[in-house]
């Protein structure tokens, strides 16, 4: 199993091994699942309360389906760990985080300084997404 390189959670690390979405729905005791790009994240919604970890795999970083998967899960109220695994690159980090990812386990470890800079890149954002940040339009019209 690839190490988690970055994690933005205070709870205990989850080391449960993840099963596929197909296998998961058959195994009522599994607490971790891995979503592939073609999987429908909404298939997991009835089971969110017993999941501690959802891994979202990026076989190629240019396939952006995993971003939607993470947002769908967060919008449904999932508060467990959503971990990006696979071909995770520096330039995705801030966008992944905005879509609700809070752990990152890249196949190839990333340069920590570059990753740090990427996470901190955007002081403000234009959209309301899954990270709870106030978008620019909200800041413009507050008070």
């Amino acid at each position, binding site marked *: 199993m690839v190490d988690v390189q970055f994690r933005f959670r205070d709870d205990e690390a989850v080391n449960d091994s993840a099963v596929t979405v197909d296998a998961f729905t058959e195994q009522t005791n599994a607490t971790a699942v891995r979503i592939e790009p073609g999987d429908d994240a909404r298939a997991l919604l009835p089971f969110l309360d017993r999941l501690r970890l959802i891994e979202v795999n990026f076989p190629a970083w240019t396939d952006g389906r995993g971003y*939607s998967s993470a947002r769908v899960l967060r919008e449904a109220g999932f508060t467990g760990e959503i971990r990006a695994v696979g071909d995770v690159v520096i330039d995705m980090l801030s966008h992944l985080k905005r879509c609700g990812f809070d752990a990152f386990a890249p196949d190839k470890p990333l340069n920590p300084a570059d990753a740090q800079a990427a996470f901190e890149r955007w002081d403000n954002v234009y959209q309301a997404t899954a990270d709870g940040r106030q978008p620019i339009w909200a800041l413009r019209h507050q008070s």
Partner: protein
Amino acid sequence: MYKYDSYDQQMVDTRVAEFRDQVRRRLSGELTEEQFRPLRLQNGLYLQLHAYMLRVAVPYGTLNSAQMTVLGDIADKYDRGYGHFTTRQNIQYNWIKLEDTPDILADLAKVEMHAIQTSGNCIRNISSDQYAGAAADEVVDPRPYAELLRQWSSFHPEFLTLPRKFKIAVIASETDRAAMRLHDIGIKMVRNPAGEIGAQFYAGGGMGRTPMIGPMIREFVPLDQLITYSEACLRVYNRYGRRDNKYKARIKILVHELGKDEYTRQVEEEFAHLLGQGIEPPLAELERIKQYFVDPAFEAGASDELDLSDPDFRLWVERNTHAHKQAGYVIANVSLKPVGGIPGDASADQIRLMAQLAKDYSFDELRVTHAQNIVFPHVKKADLYTLWKALDEAGLGIANLDTLGDIIACPGLDYCSLANARSIPVAQKISERFGSAEKQAEIGELKLKISGCINACGHHHAGHIGILGVDKKGVENYQLLLGGCEGADTSLGKITGPGFDENGIVDAVEKATEVYLSNKQDGERFLDTYRRIGMDPFKEAIYG
């Protein structure tokens, strides 16, 4: 026009810093070209046949003169003294060095410009009606909605690695001047029976190798749900658009394969869910943006009189101007299509001159059109002759808008690594043969569009006459299409038959115009005659 606040400026400055860092990692070898490619593309940087090409965004085609001046300066400083205005209302530079690009972006950021998402598999620069805010026939100025969508689509974290590129157009009049239904999403601002403004959505249009006219998927989206509905359209596409074959990855294929009704059903379901997610900016934000698009200070009671005693000026007024909503004013088009020239090219000096003239005579505003021309949207009729004289002295006073001389052409094999054939020399030959004032007067409105490959950047499907360059066993070959149109009555051109060589295609165009001239009835344009008499008489003349 829109002005950045400190937030907008910060976003663009941050992007410059991010891209500078990406270029650093590429130059140091940390990133391979393969890894760098999607990153540079999201910043409009292509690797062409001879050099890098940088495409700079002109959001909804609107520019002020300070911005236009910088576009001219960049052409001088970093390129070979010219720029190329594109069918996406943008400008591109063809001779760029990779290591210069962060500095170019920094220069652009100083005048509130950028190259964000002008390429790549993301939401591209949003296009609009080049006469927005000036035309008499619009329901409302479409640009505030385009600006709202610009901010929403900029760095949208969920939609930066879509199956394929995604183009949005926003218009607000029955006369569609932006080819709205040939976009991934077309939005038409409309007024409902209750008198409220809202957005009518079309999805799944596009050109490329499988041209399709987008069907309407929703008649009316209220203004306080515009972003939410757009997000629903994009999420369904991001999740279910095909990724197994890049030629089937555009939303038009998804809409076609699912069927309009099923795609719409999925969007509506996602939309219902997203309405509860609080992602819609308040209407106050739209009101804030609208303030930047109020009318300029038109002079009340300005005279509608024009002295047309100069015959060249008269011709230009007839051809290149359009009615303005304000009495005493007119919309003036600058054709970037001189006889024998490269469609859409302008020199640095010409660009700066247009900037100065816009400041003097058009309330500091310019537009870029998808037909690769420039518009002065608000010219007082009393100033029109002075403006035209100044343009004409710089080679910009050509009277050929929407005629056979006003060709749309992609860069083709002279620059583009995707092209199969050259477009520019064909455009030049056609404009030389048909460019005279007499020919143009005889033939009238005839929109001719040339693409150098099936990706259709030159919009050949939507030309009254379209030309598609292909590679036939290593030889450039040109196919002829007739009957395309991008307006409110959008139609796709049909291919006439076997292709031609470079000279043959020019002859074939001539024969097509002869068929038109011998068959036309009162007041008919080429397109009208074609629609009435059909393909056969043209085929006979061309191949018979």
